[in-house]
């Protein structure tokens, strides 16, 4: 192993209400590929953002090439030779490959941009990396894989000494991943330090030299990849103390009827051949890592995204769901993971939000029957225990938990019997979380059926009667709560794809 190029020591970072990084340590040597692993929300991205100057650390030190450094923005970090290849590609689709690689630092000939030189230099870069991309091609005409190669070329053209790959393989095909690995091995040979963030256990084994594991914003440990097993890493990732008691057995009676059956659902790359059943009064947990295709499955089921094939049965009857309107008509409600974008209209009152999906019920001729609207809203404020001075309060003034209740009210007013909760407690503080949990349990006991998508393992284990695990667009397992453990779920969620 080579000499140490980067040391991050005792890095601490607190956001309002969240201790995102709790005295984290990280070390990178020249000529090594170092994996950074952890569940969603473990703090990997935050750590990298602190390193590249997007966030400012509260305390701790970063020593780079023997000197203590503090970058104020990505540009500073780039200048120093630390570049990040983002998971979402930062490319200008309407410009050419060469124009993208040199954007912001074009070669000039007087007033004129020297496109010819940029093309030449790009060609040299690609030769160095042994990849064949036409520097004159329009960026948006390239495949995602090729675009990523361009990002890497751009990173290297910055005279990078440390390259951070943030889940680089998420959108790549097998072949493209092989090409990517060839490049990474090449870079390692050139003595660059490489940080590799990924969820794919098999990749970690193939490409990395060491693994650092984080959990809940803390540093768990660093292992030599060749000396450890997949199970070692998983145990380090999930080995936290569970504060909330997981459910021990299913609350659903054995004879509860199947209310929803999804049969061989396909929708693009993220939903491949997904089948499952949901029974009356059941909370069905959907577990998996980010990008496993859970939200996409829900959206396809709800008609928000087009599906390529598959059948949906409600109460045994085959139904056609091609739009959210169809879904709602069949009693399916969807609570988006991104409340502010899809769930509520924040600048409107609770009343207006509650009846948004059902306004036709509250019309008196051409006009809205305000009294009836208000009555039903107040009924649900009481029933869901929403904390608000009045039904006329603007939703923007409510806390996250109470906003979530308004969304729930909206679907209950609509008489939905099947509710899809997508990350129901994201951005909600601990106390309010418990209330949402209680509410979901009550809804289930009253006969509503719930699909709960969650990236939080504890939430899955605490709420679900049964757990569906997804990985890379496929359903990789179905576990009754009685047999569910964090390890069992994580194993399926990171399953090596054959």
């Amino acid at each position, binding site marked *: 192993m080579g000499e140490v190029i980067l040391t991050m020591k005792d890095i601490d970072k607190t956001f309002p209400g969240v201790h995102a990084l709790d005295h984290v340590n990280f070390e990178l040597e020249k000529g090594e590929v170092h994996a950074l692993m952890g569940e969603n929300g473990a703090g990997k991205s935050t750590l990298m953002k602190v390193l590249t100057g997007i966030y400012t650390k509260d305390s701790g030190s970063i020593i780079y090439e023997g000197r203590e450094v503090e970058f104020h923005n*990505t*540009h500073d970090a*780039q200048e120093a030779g630390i570049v990040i290849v983002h998971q979402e590609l*930062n*490319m*200008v*689709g*309407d*410009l050419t490959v060469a*124009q993208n690689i040199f*954007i*912001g*630092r*074009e070669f*000039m000939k007087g*007033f*004129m*941009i020297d*496109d010819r030189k940029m093309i030449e230099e790009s060609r040299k870069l690609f030769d160095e990396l042994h990849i064949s991309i*036409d520097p004159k*091609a*329009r960026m*948006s*005409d*390239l495949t995602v894989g090729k675009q990523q190669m361009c990002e890497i070329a751009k990173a290297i053209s910055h005279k990078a000494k440390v390259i951070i790959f943030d889940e680089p393989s998420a959108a790549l095909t097998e072949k493209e991943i092989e090409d990517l690995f060839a490049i990474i091995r090449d870079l390692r040979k050139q003595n660059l330090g490489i940080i590799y963030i990924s969820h794919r256990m098999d990749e970690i084994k193939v490409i990395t030299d060491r693994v650092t594991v984080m959990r809940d914003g803390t540093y768990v440990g660093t292992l030599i990849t060749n000396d450890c097993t997949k199970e070692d890493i998983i145990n380090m990732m999930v080995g936290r103390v569970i504060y909330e008691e997981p459910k021990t057995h299913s609350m659903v009676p054995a004879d509860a009827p199947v209310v929803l059956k999804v049969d061989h659902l396909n929708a693009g790359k993220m939903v491949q051949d997904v089948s499952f059943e949901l029974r009356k009064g059941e909370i069905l947990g959907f577990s998996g890592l980010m990008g496993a295709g859970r939200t996409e499955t829900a959206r396809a089921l709800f008609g928000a995204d087009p599906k390529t094939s598959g059948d949906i049965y409600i109460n045994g009857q085959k139904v056609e769901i091609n739009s959210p309107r169809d879904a709602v008509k069949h009693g399916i409600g969807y609570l988006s993971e991104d409340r502010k974008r899809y769930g509520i209209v924040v600048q409107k009152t609770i009343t207006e939000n509650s009846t948004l999906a059902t306004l036709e019920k509250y019309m008196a001729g051409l006009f809205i029957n305000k009294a009836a609207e208000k009555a039903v809203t107040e009924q649900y404020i009481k029933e869901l225990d929403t904390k608000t001075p009045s039904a006329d309060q603007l939703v923007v003034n409510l806390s996250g938990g109470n906003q979530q209740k308004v969304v729930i009210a909206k679907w209950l007013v609509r008489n939905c019997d099947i509710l899809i909760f997508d990350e129901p407690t994201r951005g909600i503080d601990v106390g309010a979380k418990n209330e949402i949990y209680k509410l979901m349990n009550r809804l289930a006991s009253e006969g509503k059926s719930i699909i709960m998508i969650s990236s939080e393992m504890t939430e899955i284990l605490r709420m679900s009667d049964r757990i569906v695990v997804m990985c890379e667009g496929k359903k990789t397992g179905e576990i009754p709560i009685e047999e569910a453990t964090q390890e069992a779920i994580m194993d399926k969620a990171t399953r090596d794809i054959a």
Partner: protein
Amino acid sequence: MAKKKTVISQEIIVAIVLVVLYLIFRLISADFGKYTTFLSVMDISYYYVLMAIGVAFPLITGGVDLSIGTGMICYALAGGFLIRAFNVPTGFAIVVTILFGLGIGIVNGILISLMGLPPFLATLCTCMITRGLGSVVTGSFAVPWPTAKQANGWFHSIFKIATADKTKLPLGLLWIILLTLIMQFVLAHTRFGRYTIAIGSNKEAAILSGINVKFFHVMVYAVSGLFAGLAAVAYAAVIKTVQPGTGAGMELDAIGGAIVGGVSASGGYGTIYGTVIGAYVIIFLKQGLPYIGFNANMQQIITGLVLIGAVCIDIVKRRVIK
């Protein structure tokens, strides 16, 4: 392996449309073929085309500039007023007119880029303000610039000169061609042009690449204002008297021209030569349709339909590429 695109560029389609339109009008109407008609169509075209060239830049960033129509009238009023009321040299008035446009453009840019107003809203406000401002400056009176026969009316010959045998030549067309070439070069081969496209295509990526996006975003609107100022001079040269309170709606023809000429309605793509050709399509429709028996209302409807067609081509093109 980028797929070879078989889509013909919209610029070529529009150029063909322009030629076909011209031929149809000539075939049906003998009057349209007259040289004097050609001259008057050219006269009208200059200020529309100048506005279109300018507004192409905000459009390519995914924004818009609605202030150029009323702005143009406002700047022309101000310049003319200086000559009438204070007897300033014409050259000075022209410079003030152009700088006024540039100034309002910079104001737009600051509102949008630094203060974060949506382009539609910011320029709608300056549209209203310039409309009122023109009237305030002149005390609501119409302002005639010097006529061609007057001594200080030399600026008319920028756009139209008479030869020795009294034939008039549309000199303005030469300037339009020249400006088209210059601005196309600016768009395709300078940092400013490249970042204009980058802002329209993926602003986030542009920021992350360390580009001073705020500055360039202001410049985009400054260019649009500058060309509205130039258009004001062209307007004063061909329209005898500048009327306060007019100009609203002219920006739509200019914007329409740019869109017809292939500027993407969602930003990220466009050419200046396409914009100019597109603007001429709109002008031909405006000026030519009455010659073949369509009244002004019909002409509006047809122009609207042509715009829909152009935007559909853009949308289909984007889908094909995806």
